[in-house]
């Protein structure tokens, strides 16, 4: 840990998955051929004018409400002026001093310690196009030329700005994780970090303990996973600590996280000296939001992750299981459906966080798109808990269910995996095994408990693995009189 006080604030950009763009009717489509999902508005052609997307406004209000923000009855769009080849108007329509949502908070928890991170503002803006530089390893410097795809130009973005309330890389990660889960639960974005539909920029500064004045701020960009956000901040704390210890100055700068070398590198100095000459967007009128709309959006919010987690804990899940089930796409629905079918919540959660998650990962499809239902999961759990199916066999049955082979019981029967609970059949097998191994039985009677395992194994083999090992073990001990 650093001997300095660490101050971190995070700016998050969320790409909304509305059907159309922020200021025109073009589809939001990242699979389209380059420059086909475009029109005069998002290409910045002479004479074209923006018209705000009402759905994007509504979704921004939803996110603001979920973060406990005040929603402005009237907010204003501004132009942020800067020249860049993939910014077709050479200004970005954004919000400045009158954002749609402001003054909220987000509760996060690291190792059981809660922290409140203030939310300064949540505002709307438009995305830029995408540049591809040819040659020079994809960097602009030294490249032979650049191609610009304007399909992304004008895609609605929501920017969430946190207060500088974050003190550790772990808290930063917890904040980002929680914010992402809220966005997912609202269904307003894919929130895929690796694809850039959710992007985090962090501002970090260090100061000696007790110092009121903030240290020099460094902006860190280009973290495309939650882990790299945490790593980048840990790296910066170390880097800045060393410099401060050595009495070297921290340059106010933008630094880029480089995943391969696991370090931050300075960006181009031009990016830092921008004067955006904010201008109230004269092509748009203020966004007026009625009290009724604010109330309707607020009351229409789905259950948020924090509430869902605490409900799952009340159902009997431990902290980690509640977190995993709540965060995993579709897992919460399965849990609730299985419990409704009479299954025990904790058992279901074990399956969800273990084998189900592993299967989803290896299948690479969302759980909603597999044949696994709450009813099937409940049946599987009931079979295991009722001793009809061994845990090992149950894994095979689950794989069968997810492969679309049918109902758990039917699969278990077809694969001959049902445990035999007919004690007469098991007794017969135990008696036969004991008769075949008189020496081992003698040693067991002599107090060598290790031989129970050996004998159970022989019985399991004899029954083709279909006996319940606990039942067999008990039976051997009582027969052998051990």
């Amino acid at each position, binding site marked *: 840990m650093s001997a300095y006080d660490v101050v971190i604030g995070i700016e998050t950009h969320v790409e909304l998955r509305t059907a159309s763009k922020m200021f025109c009717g073009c589809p939001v489509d990242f699979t389209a051929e380059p420059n086909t999902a475009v029109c*005069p508005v998002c*290409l*910045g*052609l*002479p*004479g*074209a*004018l*923006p*018209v*705000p997307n009402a759905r994007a406004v509504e979704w921004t209000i939803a996110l603001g409400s979920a973060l406990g923000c005040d929603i402005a009855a009237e907010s204003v769009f501004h*132009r942020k*002026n800067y*020249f860049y*080849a993939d910014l*077709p*108007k*050479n*200004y970005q329509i954004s919000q400045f001093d009158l954002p749609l949502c402001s003054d909220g908070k987000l509760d996060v928890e690291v190792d059981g310690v809660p922290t409140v991170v203030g939310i300064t503002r949540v505002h709307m803006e438009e995305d830029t196009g995408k540049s591809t530089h040819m040659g020079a390893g994809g960097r*602009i410097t030294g490249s032979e030329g*650049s191609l*610009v795809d304007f399909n992304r130009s004008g895609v609605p973005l929501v920017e969430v700005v946190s207060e500088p309330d974050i003190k550790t890389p772990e808290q930063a990660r917890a904040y980002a994780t929680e914010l992402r889960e809220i966005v997912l639960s609202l269904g307003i974005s894919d929130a895929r970090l690796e694809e850039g539909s959710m992007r985090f920029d962090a501002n970090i500064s260090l100061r000696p303990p007790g110092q009121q004045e903030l240290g020099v701020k460094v902006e860190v960009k280009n973290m495309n996973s939650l882990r790299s956000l945490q790593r980048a901040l840990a790296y910066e704390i170390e880097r800045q600590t060393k410099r401060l210890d050595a009495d070297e100055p921290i340059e106010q700068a933008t630094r880029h996280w480089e995943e391969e070398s696991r370090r931050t590198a300075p960006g181009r100095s031009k990016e830092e000296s921008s*004067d955006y*000459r*904010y*201008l109230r967007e*004269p*092509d*748009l*009128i203020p966004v007026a939001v009625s009290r009724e709309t604010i109330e309707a959006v607020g009351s229409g919010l789905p259950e948020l992750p924090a509430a869902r987690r605490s409900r799952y804990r009340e159902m009997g899940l431990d902290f980690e299981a509640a977190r995993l089930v709540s965060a995993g796409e579709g897992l919460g629905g399965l849990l609730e459906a299985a419990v409704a079918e009479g299954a025990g919540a904790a058992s279901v959660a074990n399956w969800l966080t273990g084998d189900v998650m592993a299967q989803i990962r290896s299948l690479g499809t969302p759980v909603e798109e597999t044949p696994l239902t709450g009813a099937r999961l409940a049946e599987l759990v009931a079979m295991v808990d009722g001793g009809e199916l061994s845990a090992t066999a149950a894994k095979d049955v689950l794989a069968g269910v997810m492969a679309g082979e049918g109902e758990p019981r039917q699969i278990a029967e077809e694969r001959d995996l049902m445990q035999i609970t007919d004690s007469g059949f098991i007794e017969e097998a135990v008696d036969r095994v004991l008769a075949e191994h008189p020496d081992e039985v003698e040693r067991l009677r002599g107090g060598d408990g290790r031989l129970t395992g050996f004998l159970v194994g022989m019985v399991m083999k004899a029954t083709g693995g279909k006996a319940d090992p606990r039942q067999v073990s008990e039976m051997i001990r009582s027969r052998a009189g051990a």
Partner: protein
Amino acid sequence: MSDPADLTISAAGALLRSGDLSAVELLEAVLRRASMTEAILHAFLTIDSAGASAAAAAADEAFAAGDDLGHLHGIPIALKDNMVTRGIETTCSSQILSGYIPPYDATVVERLKAAGAVIVGKTNMDEFAMGSSTENSAYGATRNPWDPDRVPGGSSGGSAAAVSAGSALAALGSDTGGSIRQPASLTGVVGMKPTYGLVSRYGLVAFASSLDQIGPLTRTVDDAVTVFEAIAGHDPSDATSYPGPVPDVRTALDGGVAGLRVGVVRELWGEGTDPEVAAVCRRAVDLLADAGALVSEVSLPSLEYALSAYYLIAPAECSSNLARFDGVRYGLRRAGSTVEEMMASSRHDGLGPEVTRRVLLGTYALSAGYYDAFYGQAQKVRTLVIRDFAAAYGDVDVLISPVSPTTAFKIGERTDDPLAMYLSDVCTIPSNLAGDPGISVPVGLDSGGLPIGLQVLAPALGEAVLFRVAKAVESLAGSDARPALATSEGAA
């Protein structure tokens, strides 16, 4: 019959419907007039003979089939070159848009086409509508049909000259600080700026978005009403478009001025006003009073600062609006070793001196540390101007002033003195700041035979009273004089 090129829209419409004139004949007359005058005037950048002929032929077929689209059907109309036209070069008189062919029509163009109008071509203008003389065109100045040594005013000077000369029966212009009314005044035609938001700006290449408004230039007030009705109305593609109904401007059009309260604006008849202009305008006001108007003098003290505020607000918006002309996607592109260099040299070579001056001025006014002192302060003045107008309209129905302090000035006379040029718009700028409608009506000539326009101003959405008073001015004080170049004799 006199030359059809000299007809008003209403007169031509009657002949088209009686069968005494075909749309093709009307267009031919207009194109003939253009071919006789263009070498001198240079009102047009593009004449779309083929497209216009097809539209005129289609109009004749429609008339024959009994399919009448209304007043503008078959009427040759010119468009200022800052309204985008699908498939027809649109340059805003700038090098940076040289060769630019838009893929879509401006809303006003769509509406004119839907009304059956025949689009003659695209008219010359001050580059990106910045100027008051049409000398700031990258493709050469337009001359005044009344005196080719003089400017036609600007920035819609090409539209004004075309209508004045008979190369179109009407034209659309755009008015950011007087760019319809001032050239109308200097060329002896009617020019009207509607209430901000009544006519869609979609497809109008923006100069200063909060001030720009499209409007008609015509030979008569009746014709201005006709064109206004065709282009006004809510457009969902323009978020600043007024969503309510367009004022009914026809019912009370001939109501006269008896009993109407007319305010003469003290601040707009100031020292800079040419005495002849003042006298001709004063005479028109006296005629209104004789006709029963209740004339009084009113004062709007904030107008003293309107020009200064305008020259901060308009350049600030223009600096942002014109940023898109960077050579990346369309228009002129110069090579550069980096993208910044490419953009900078494309803009350097593509934008003319007046545009560059205003972009720099606006960039400065918006810069950190200067914003409050310049742009912020100008916005406060704008608020005061709006309040002053609102207060004045509590006491009077319309306001009256000259349109321009002087008649048409000589080509080159003010090109070296931007401030003198800026003063050309001192009477027209306040209503752009307020968003109110205004109109220029010809009321006579000065001793040199140059036209003088009277300005009528009304409150926002006050088009009904605006046109009504304008029509009264026209019938009481209007001038029937035509420019020398417009008569077949003079043109030949």
